[in-house]
């Protein structure tokens, strides 16, 4: 593993944080295309969205059913998202070809006798569903899986609506964005713990890997007067990376100021992604609020290929969780992930003394 990492040598080269050759493309599955309300706000009722390199257009029929087609007119290749929606039809901006919600062409206006549109006049249709405040699209070729598994993190969090929802477009690949979170969280942990409990000088990190998740829990460890370790206190922070693009963070310390953050880092292209964040919290006013997100939206926007890649380079023991997350994200198959599953526990010094 380490030999492979040194072969790649990313950190300071110009390829920066780009996803590397040899790392598989994002797996087929359900991904968030947009916030539900974004379609309503779209100027002509149609919204362009990019998911795993596919350019898509989303719109709704009069009855409110969500429809998703390839964002390319089959006539001249003009994006359908430049067009408009009228009734149940989406109309191309160039020659006014009209398509139904299933992407089949219904009318070519230049045909005087209203003769049938040419055979094969259709836009590719993509399965799309509304759930948990988002529009989801299926990127696979076969019939779609159940969506519930993908939306579970949004349901687990709370029955209430999130206090904050936001969308940020980021100029690096989704795996790198997830790794930046893991890396940052290990640092935030240290900072946070010290603030919460000035007497604490160690944290215990428990990492649990399953085929679809890497989960880690952090609890504070207060050393006893004689220098020997005492029993850890309750879990202060827990986080998970869920295959393929989801991150959840839960703070349970500090009594009332608990918070949950769910972030979907949707791959849009090979080296860019769109981060969809939902935050549940009772305490949006305090500065700690920013910390609970791991990376603020401003910090996300600043991530660029020029910055050092996370997950490569010199590793120390306290980077274990970053390493575990990287292995997890770069795995190709379930079998490959199953091979390395571990339970691991280690200590991180959180006081400078």
């Amino acid at each position, binding site marked *: 593993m380490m030999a492979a990492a040194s072969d790649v040598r990313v950190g300071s080269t110009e390829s920066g944080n780009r996803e590397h050759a040899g790392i598989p493309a994002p797996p087929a599955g359900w991904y968030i295309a947009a916030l539900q309300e974004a379609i309503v706000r779209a100027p002509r009722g149609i919204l362009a969205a990019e998911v795993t390199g596919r350019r898509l257009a989303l719109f709704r029929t009069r009855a409110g059913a969500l429809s998703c087609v390839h964002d*390319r007119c089959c006539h001249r*290749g*003009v994006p359908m998202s430049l067009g408009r929606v009228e009734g149940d039809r989406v109309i191309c901006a*160039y*020659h006014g070809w009209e398509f139904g919600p299933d992407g089949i062409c219904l009318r070519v206006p*230049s045909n*005087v006798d209203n003769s049938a549109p040419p055979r094969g006049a259709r836009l590719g249709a993509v399965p799309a569903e509304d759930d948990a405040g988002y529009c989801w699209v299926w990127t696979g070729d076969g019939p779609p899986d159940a969506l519930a598994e993908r939306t579970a993190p949004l349901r687990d969090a709370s029955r209430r609506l999130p206090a904050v929802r936001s969308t940020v477009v980021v100029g690096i690949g989704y795996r790198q964005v997830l790794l930046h979170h893991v890396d940052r969280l290990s640092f935030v942990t240290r900072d946070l713990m010290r603030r919460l409990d000035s007497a604490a000088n160690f944290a215990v990190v428990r990492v649990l890997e399953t085929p679809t998740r890497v989960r880690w829990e952090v609890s504070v460890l207060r050393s006893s007067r004689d220098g020997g370790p005492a029993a850890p206190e309750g879990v202060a922070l827990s986080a998970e990376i869920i295959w393929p693009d989801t991150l959840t963070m839960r703070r349970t310390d500090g009594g009332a100021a608990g918070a949950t953050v769910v972030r979907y880092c949707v791959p849009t292209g090979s080296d860019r992604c769109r981060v969809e964040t939902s935050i549940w919290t009772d305490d949006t006013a305090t500065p700690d609020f920013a910390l609970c997100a791991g990376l603020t939206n401003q910090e996300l926007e600043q991530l660029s290929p020029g910055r050092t890649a996370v997950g490569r380079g010199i590793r120390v023991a306290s980077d274990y969780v970053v390493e575990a997350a990287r292995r997890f994200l770069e795995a190709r198959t379930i079998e490959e992930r199953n091979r390395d599953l571990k339970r691991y526990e280690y200590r991180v010094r959180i006081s400078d003394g």
Partner: protein
Amino acid sequence: MVNSELSGWYALCAVDDLVATRVLAREVFAHRLAVFQDELGHVAVLDDRCPHGGLPLALGRVDNGLLVCAGHGWRFDAQGRCRVVPSSCSAEPLPACTPVRRYPVATHAGYHWVWIGKGTPFSLPLTFELPELGRAGIRVLQLRYRVRCEYQDAIDNLVDITHLPFVHVFPHMRDIDRRLLISLVEIETDLDQVVLRAGTPSQGSADAIAERRIEITFAAPTTVRLDFPRPAAGAASAMVACFVPQADDTTIVESTIVFPAADDSTAFTVARLDASADDPFSTLGRILDEDLVILVAQGRERRLSTAPDLVVAGDAMVAACRQHAKARSAGRIPAARTKRFLCRCGTEVPNWPVAE
């Protein structure tokens, strides 16, 4: 790159753009060209590369009708031959280098043209001369601009009348919509050009256009002329556009638009004077903008996907122009034919919201 090189004449610059002492840098497909005028006023088009150090010749200047390279001052004549090497002693003979590649050049319809490709240069149709240019009271607008799309898509856009009611949305276009609603379209292909005429079908004969609204002429490889019979006051009566493919799959458009002296005609026109604005160019600018939105998006999409186009009856002019250009480029004589069909080029109601 989807574009393949089509042999033919391409516009280099408007005649007025070429100043005696300057060298212009131009590009047609992957050909980089240096354009200048010798002392007799003959236009010379040379490969834009000095045989000495490889510097672009267009960085240089013109002195006494010779192109002076910016690097070491080597001087070249209009034939591309090296005439002076300043660093050489008087006894030293000129280097035995082959002349710089020279391209055939012509002056026509207010432009200098270069012949690119194989075969014998054919002549450009006389249609592209704009006789109005010299007349009193005529205003002429010459535009040179770059579009980030392939030249073929830019030509398609200009020869295609079925896009008018969908792309061009502001009030005066609604008038056109109604007039072109069901048009009789006549497409005539001959050796030199493809001509499209469209207008209201006549009551008596299904094959005759009662009132011609628009006439479009295309000549291989990339030149288009639009004519608007009996234009309204302040509106354009004719336009010539030459599309010049660039190496990076963008397109340079060289166009001349003629605004005749005012008259009272209220016939069909594209660039009608806005009631609120004195400037017919402002309407023209909006029309260009609306096309550019489509073309730039299309250009971006073409770079990402090679999915083929679908062709319907309304695309007959686009198809005829592409065939004509391909045939002429290959040195074939395009078959003469005429095609007539009814085509909807407008909408019953102005169906686009007026642009905000």
